[in-house]
C-alpha cells in the first residue's frame, strides 16, 4: 500500500463501490422479480391445476353419463322381450313340447328380435338356451369363443345382479372386441346382446383442448374395455395410474361413491367415475401437459426478469455515470492538486517521494537509476531585485524547462523553494552482465547524464539570459547514479541524501556545475 498513492487507492475503492452498488441493485431487482414470479406462478399453477382438474372431472362425469346412458339403453332394449310371455317363457329344452310348436315359437321370438334389434348396432342379439341352442343373432365371433360348447354356462356366470338377473361381461375367453350384456329370461334361457367396443367411440367425446388426455373405460378387474388409445384395449390399466389412485390423497369429485375421485400428483392428473354397472371411467392427463403453459410462462418470466434486471443495471450504470462523472472530475482535480506543485507544474515533494519509492520497489537487480538534484543558484537575488512575482515566474519556467529536457518517463519534482529533482531508470536487458561490462555501461549512463545536464545548463542560461546578467543565476546539480545492487532495495531517503551531498559539493565548488556522487 505504501507504494501506491493515496489517491489511487481511494479512486480504486471508489470504483469498486460503484460496481458493488450496481451489482447489489441488480441483485435486489432480480430477487424481487423472482419472488414475485414465484408467488404469481405458484398461484397460477395451483389455479391451472384446479381448473384442469375441474375440467377433467366435468369431462369424466360427462363421459360417465354418456356411458351410463349407453349401458342403460343396452339394458332397456332386451326388456322388450318381456312384453309377451311367448318371448321370455319359451324353453327350447322342454322335451315335452312338439317340434312344430318349437319352430313356431322360435319363429315368433326371431321376429321379435328382428323388430327390437333394429334399435342398436348389435353384433349379437339372441337367446341362448340351456342346451346351447340359440335363437336370434348370435355372431360367428361369439360362436367361435365356445368351439366346444358351454356358451350358456359361461353367460350364466356373468349374471351377478340377483335382483335384475343380469350382468355385463368383457374379455370372454380373450374376446376383447365387444362387450356383452346378459339377462336371464327364464331358468333355461339367457338373453345375450353384444356391441363392438368400437361403438363406445361415439360416447368417448372430449374437448380437443385436452390434448394427450387418455380416457379409459375399465372393468372391475381394471382391464381396459375401451380407451382413446385403441392399442390399450384388453390390457390392464398401467400400474402407476392405479398406484396414484390408491396411494395419493384424494378429494371426492362426486358424493355418490368413494370410488369417484380426482387425484393430482406430480405425474398425473386423474379422475375416475363409476358407471351404473360397476365399470369405471378413468381420465388421465400428464401433469406436465396441464402445466405446459405455466412452464412456458415460467421460462418467459425468468427471461423477462433477467432482461429487466439487465435493463435496470444499464440504466443504473448510466445514472451512476451521470452522478459520479462530476465527482470523478473533482476527485481527479483534488488528486492533481495534491500531487502536482501548482507553481512549477511538476510533482511536489511528497508526490515525488511516493513516485520514486514506488519505482524503486520495482526496479530490477541490474537496472540503473539516476537521481538528479537541481538547484537554482542565487535565486534569492531574483526575489530581492526583481520581486517575488518574477521569482515565481522563474520557478514556473524552470519547471517547464525540466519537463522539456527530460524524457516523459522521468519523474520530475520540486522539492522545495528553488530545488528540483529528476529521477529516471535505465533498464538493462542483459541480466547476466558481468561487473566490468556493467561498470562500462554505468559509465556510459553517467556520460549521458552529464551531457543532459550540460544541455540543461545551456538551455537554462538561454532561457534566463536577462536574469543571469541581473542576478547571476545559474544551475547547480548533484547526481546519484546507482551501482550494482547488493540485493537490497534502495530507499528514496538514502539516494536523496547522496544526490543532495553531491549538490552540496557543486555549490561549494562555486555553483553552476554538477557533481556525480561517488562513495567515499
Amino acid at each position, binding site marked *: 500500500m505504501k507504494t501506491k498513492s493515496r489517491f489511487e487507492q481511494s479512486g480504486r475503492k471508489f470504483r469498486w463501490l460503484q460496481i458493488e452498488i450496481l451489482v447489489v441493485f441488480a441483485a435486489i431487482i432480480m430477487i424481487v422479480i423472482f419472488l414475485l414470479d414465484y408467488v404469481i406462478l405458484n398461484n397460477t399453477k395451483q389455479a391451472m391445476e384446479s381448473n384442469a382438474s375441474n375440467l377433467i372431472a366435468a369431462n369424466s362425469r360427462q363421459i360417465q353419463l354418456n356411458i351410463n346412458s349407453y349401458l342403460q339403453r343396452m339394458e332397456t332394449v332386451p326388456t322388450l322381450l318381456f312384453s309377451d310371455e311367448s318371448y321370455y317363457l319359451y324353453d327350447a329344452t322342454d322335451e315335452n313340447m*312338439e*317340434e*312344430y310348436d*318349437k*319352430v*313356431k315359437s*322360435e*319363429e315368433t321370438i*326371431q321376429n321379435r*328380435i*328382428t*323388430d327390437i*334389434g*333394429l334399435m342398436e*348396432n*348389435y*353384433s349379437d342379439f339372441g337367446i341362448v338356451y340351456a342346451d346351447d341352442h*340359440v335363437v336370434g*343373432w*348370435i*355372431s*360367428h*365371433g361369439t*360362436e*367361435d369363443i365356445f*368351439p366346444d360348447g358351454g356358451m350358456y354356462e359361461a353367460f350364466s356366470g356373468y349374471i351377478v345382479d340377483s335382483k335384475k338377473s343380469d350382468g355385463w361381461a368383457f374379455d370372454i375367453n380373450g374376446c376383447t*372386441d365387444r362387450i356383452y350384456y346378459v339377462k336371464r329370461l327364464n331358468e333355461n334361457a339367457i338373453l345375450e346382446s353384444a356391441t*363392438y367396443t*368400437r361403438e363406445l367411440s*361415439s360416447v368417448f367425446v372430449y374437448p380437443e383442448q385436452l390434448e394427450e388426455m387418455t380416457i379409459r373405460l375399465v372393468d372391475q378387474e381394471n382391464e381396459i374395455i375401451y380407451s382413446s388409445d385403441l392399442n390399450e384395449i384388453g390390457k390392464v390399466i398401467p400400474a402407476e395410474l392405479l398406484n396414484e389412485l390408491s396411494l395419493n390423497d384424494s378429494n371426492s369429485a362426486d358424493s355418490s361413491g368413494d370410488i369417484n375421485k380426482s387425484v393430482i400428483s406430480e405425474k398425473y392428473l386423474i379422475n375416475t367415475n363409476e358407471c351404473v354397472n360397476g365399470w369405471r371411467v378413468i381420465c388421465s392427463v400428464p401433469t406436465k401437459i396441464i402445466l405446459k403453459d405455466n412452464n412456458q410462462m415460467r421460462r*418467459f418470466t425468468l*427471461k*423477462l426478469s433477467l*432482461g429487466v434486471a*439487465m*435493463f435496470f443495471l*444499464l*440504466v443504473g*450504470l*448510466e445514472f451512476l*455515470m451521470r452522478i459520479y462523472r462530476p465527482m470523478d472530475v473533482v476527485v481527479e482535480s483534488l488528486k492533481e492538486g495534491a500531487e502536482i506543485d501548482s507553481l512549477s507544474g511538476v510533482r511536489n515533494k511528497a508526490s515525488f517521494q511516493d513516485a520514486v519509492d514506488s519505482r524503486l520497489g520495482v526496479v530490477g537487480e541490474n537496472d540503473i537509476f539516476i537521481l538528479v538534484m537541481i538547484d537554482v543558484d542565487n535565486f534569492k537575488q531574483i526575489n530581492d531585485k526583481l520581486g517575488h512575482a518574477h521569482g515565481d515566474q522563474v520557478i514556473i519556467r524552470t519547471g517547464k524547462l525540466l519537463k522539456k529536457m527530460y524524457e516523459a518517463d522521468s519523474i520530475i519534482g520540486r522539492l522545495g523553494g528553488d530545488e528540483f529533482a529528476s529521477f529516471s531508470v535505465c533498464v538493462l536487458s542483459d541480466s547476466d552482465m558481468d561487473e566490468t561490462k556493467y561498470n562500462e555501461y554505468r559509465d556510459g549512463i553517467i556520460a549521458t547524464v552529464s551531457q543532459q545536464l550540460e544541455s540543461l545548463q545551456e538551455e537554462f542560461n538561454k532561457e534566463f539570459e536577462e536574469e543571469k546578467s541581473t542576478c547571476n543565476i545559474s544551475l547547480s546539480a548533484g547526481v546519484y547514479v546507482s551501482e550494482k545492487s547488493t540485493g537490497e532495495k534502495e530507499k528514496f531517503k538514502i539516494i536523496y541524501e547522496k544526490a543532495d551531498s553531491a549538490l552540496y559539493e557543486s555549490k561549494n565548488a562555486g555553483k553552476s556545475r554538477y557533481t556525480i556522487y561517488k562513495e567515499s
Partner: protein
Amino acid sequence: MKLLNKSNVIIRVLIVVLILAIIYTLIDKRIWNGNEEKVTETQNKTHIFLSWWGNDVRHLYTMEGVDLFQEKNPDIDVSYRYGVWSGYEKRTKVWMESHNEADVMQINFAWLQEYSPDGTGFYDLNKLSEYIDFSNYTEEELEYGSKNGVLNAIPIAMNTHTFYYNQDILDEYGMDVPLSWEDFEALGKRAKKDNRYALGFSKKQLLLFMIAYYEQNHAETVFNEDGTLNIDEKGIEYMLDYYKKLMDDHVICPIDSFDRAKYMSGDIIGTMCWISDTKLYCDDLQATGVNVSRGHYPVKEGAERTGWYIKPATMWAISANTPHPEESAKLLNYLVNDPDMAQFQQTEKGVPVSDAAIKALTATGLKDTNEYKATEELFSDPDNLYLMIPNMESEAILDAFKSGADEYLYDKMELDECALKIYKDINKAINGE
C-alpha cells in the same frame, strides 16, 4: 474532453440499442396479442351416415375402412348403422319408408326393384360422376345397378352359390363330393345313420335349392322376369314334396336347426352358400384342421335349364334424399375403388368388380383365394347361370315358403292344402299385400 464526450455518446447509443434488443427479444407476441379477438376454430364437418349388413368380419373391416376414409377426408364425419342380414331387410324398409335411410347404403340387388322400380328411389349416380370413378366398371356391370336407365347402385362383386363339404367325413364314408340330386340323397342316407345331415343352409338357400330342382325337372322358370310366379300351386306342391323328402332323408337339415356351429362341428357335412361367404364356411373350417372340398351345383342329366342364378353380391347406393350427395359420392367411391379399402375388404364380399380393387388385390395374392377359385370355376359357364329375379330374395316370399312349408313338414296340413296356402301367400307378398 472532446474524446470523452464522443465515447459517452457511443456508450449511450449502445445502451439504447441493447435495451431495445432485449425488449424485442423478450416480449412475447402473446402479450401484444392480448387484446386481440380470439377466434377458436370449431369443427365444421359434413356429417353423413353409412349403413350395411354383414357378419363380424365385415362389420369390423368396414369400420376400419371408415376410419381411414375420415382420415383421408377430415372434413367428412361418418356415422354408421349395421346389423346382421336376418332382419336387415325389415330394418331397411323402416328406414326407407320413414325417409330415415342412411346417405350411403349397402343394398341388395332385389331392393332396386322394390324401392326404385322407376329409377328414382335412389340417387342418380351419373350426376356424381365427378366423384365416382366409373371407368373401373364395364357397361354391363353398371347395368346391374341401373333401373329405368338410371344408375342407382354400384355392384361390389358378382355372386352365386357354391357348395363346401367336410372332406374328412366324406372320406370316412368313402363317398365323393355330391354332383347330382341322387348323390345328395345317398349322402343324406349315410349321414342319417350318424344323425348327421348332408347339407345345411338358411331359408334363402332353401328356396333357391328348390327352384333349381323344379326348373331342372320342368324346363320352366318359377318366377317370371317381372317377379310374378310362373307356376301354380301344383308347382309349389312339387317343390314342397321334394323338400320334405330331403329333410326326412337327412339331406337338408331343418332350417330352424341350422347354424354354422353345427357345420363347424361336423353335425352337418356340407353347406350351400354364397361365394362371398367362403371365409365362413371354407377358410374357417380349414383353419380348424379339417379338409374342405368345394362342390358344384347339382344338375339333372339332360335338363334344359340349370335353375341356378347369379346376382351382384351387394351394391352401394346413395339415398335419393341425401342433403350431402357429393360427400356421399366420395364415400361410395372410396368403398368400391380405393386400394386401401380393397385391402380391408379383400374378397370378403366376393371377387370385386372394380378394376381398381382387383388391381390392388392382385398384388396381394387375389388369385390364391378360395373365393377367386370358386368364382373362376362357376363363372366359367355363364350360359347356364341366369340373372336372379329380385323376388327370389324377397324376405316376405322366403318367409311365406318356409313358414308355410313348416305346416306340411310337421303334419299340420295336407300337401295340396299347404301348397295352395304358400302359393296364395307368395302372391300376396308379390303384390305387397
